[in-house]
């Protein structure tokens, strides 16, 4: 039998395999992104970039309690004006680079997207999980009318594909996903709001106190979100949350995802995870008699 074909696409973006690097993990420095692409990721998503330079929170920015990882980095980023060079370095790999952006309103998102397109990114990922300036304590991604406005305006202003990354921390994900349905793809999920207290100091571990839970603990939430959205809306979905192995990715693909992103697993497996999961995926497909991703995508939905 010939080798299974693990290439796929996310909307119009062609991908040599289903595994992308998730935003915020090892994607601040152009050299790092380039190395991760060279070592097997199909594409990388940059750290979320905003209008102004921001240092983020003081460490501790992660709480690590194997397998529980909670982070609050505080959106450090060099500002959109300083990021072009990093993207240029990353693009030397010849593979797609997706520009993640965050803003406090529609205008910022539109401006940032335009800049990313200028820098040559192959798609835009809207990080809709940043804090909502109007809605205290909640996220932009919890307000469906704001999501709709941002997505429609960014879509109207750039030619490259626009992905919307949604938060699982909402009462009705379907409402938000419908609001974002003008996107070329929906990315699910960002971190789950969580917190860690150290009982010997009696203090929250993270400087920001509250953080976002990622890693294997949230995979069931990610699978549920992808499944829920794919059950009601006909739109490409990219799965993310707790993927450490091809088996995890296959679960997302069977829930309907076209591709997946990997973040926290870089902690345990290092950059080598990208070639590991591609190999595992080929083995699984060969063993089960699948020749292409489409053979099992969405299988659990039927």
């Amino acid at each position: 039998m010939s080798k299974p074909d693990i290439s796929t696409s996310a909307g119009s973006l062609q991908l040599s395999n289903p595994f992308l690097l998730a935003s915020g993990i090892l994607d601040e420095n152009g050299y790092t992104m380039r190395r991760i692409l060279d070592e097997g990721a199909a594409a990388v998503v940059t750290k979320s970039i905003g209008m102004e330079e921001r240092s983020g929170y003081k460490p501790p920015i992660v709480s690590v309690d194997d397998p529980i990882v909670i982070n609050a980095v505080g959106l450090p980023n060099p500002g959109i004006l300083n990021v072009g060079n990093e993207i240029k370095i990353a693009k030397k790999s010849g593979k797609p680079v997706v520009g993640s952006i965050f803003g406090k309103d529609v205008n910022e998102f539109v401006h940032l997207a335009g800049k990313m397109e200028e820098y040559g990114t192959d798609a835009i990922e809207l990080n809709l999980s940043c804090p909502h300036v109007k809605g205290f304590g909640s996220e932009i991604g919890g307000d469906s009318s704001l999501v709709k406005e941002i997505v429609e305006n960014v879509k109207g202003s750039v030619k490259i594909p626009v992905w919307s990354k949604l938060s699982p921390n909402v009462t009705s994900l379907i409402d938000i996903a419908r609001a974002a349905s003008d996107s070329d793809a929906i990315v699910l999920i960002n971190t789950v709001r969580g917190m860690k207290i150290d009982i010997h100091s009696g203090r929250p571990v993270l400087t920001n106190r509250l953080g976002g839970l990622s890693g294997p603990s949230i995979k069931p939430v990610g699978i549920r979100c992808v499944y829920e959205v794919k059950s009601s809306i006909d739109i490409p979905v990219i799965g993310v949350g707790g993927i450490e192995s091809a088996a995890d990715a296959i679960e997302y693909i069977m829930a309907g995802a076209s591709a997946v992103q990997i973040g926290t697993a870089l902690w345990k497996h290092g950059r080598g995870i990208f070639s590991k999961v591609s190999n595992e995926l080929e083995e699984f497909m060969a063993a089960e008699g699948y020749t292409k991703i489409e053979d099992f995508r969405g299988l659990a939905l039927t």
Partner: protein
Amino acid sequence: MIYSPRILRNEINTPTVNSLYFKLDIPVEPGQFVMVWVPGKSEIPMSLSMIGEEKCLTVKKYGDTSNVLAATKPGERIFLRGPYGKGFTRVDGKILLVGGGSGMASLRPMFNENAHGLIAARSQDELLFKELFGSDKLTVATDDGTSGIKGNIVEGMKVLDLESFRMIYVCGPERMLKSIVDYVSDKKINMELSLERSMKCGIGLCDSCSVDGLQVCRDGPTFNLEEVKKMEEFGRTRLSESGKRVWFQ
């Protein structure tokens, strides 16, 4: 998980360096580091300067966090996670330990009877752990000439037969390492360098410590000379706290 051992002793090593001793039953390789959390301040990477059942952090007072940490009293707790990173390779035979700044802290667990030390500091009283070495096995360089050779660490290297060592282990700030790497680039020696880049996560996620796409916290902090020579970013550029590319002056 965060360990919170209580400090047994706080030893003053130099006017700017203290050593905190504590018991903690976790295996550590020489050259590995931990992330030390000072609640209310920050969390910083620290090498372990002793790695047996009794362990030690040797803290140079650079700023806010290290100052509070260095002042921990016996009976008080410190908070740390790890160990992280890749340790030094051990070899048999003559070795050279080269430390600048707080660098000798991470080299201390490599000390043995075959070890020669090269210690550099601004001034005589800042020479860290020089008492480890017999006077015949110690080379010293000070910027102000108050002890040993007057000049920087490279001046110290010049008086040594570098090729006679089975391995040279180096730890210090990146600018120091850069000048060493430039100096030895055409010499036939074995060298491992422990890099100090700023670290936020310590576990290979945040990209703040990366050099040429390698994570110092995970692929390092120790690298061998050949790896370091290949690095385009080494000693030239790094990302600031925000992720903005800045140049080493």
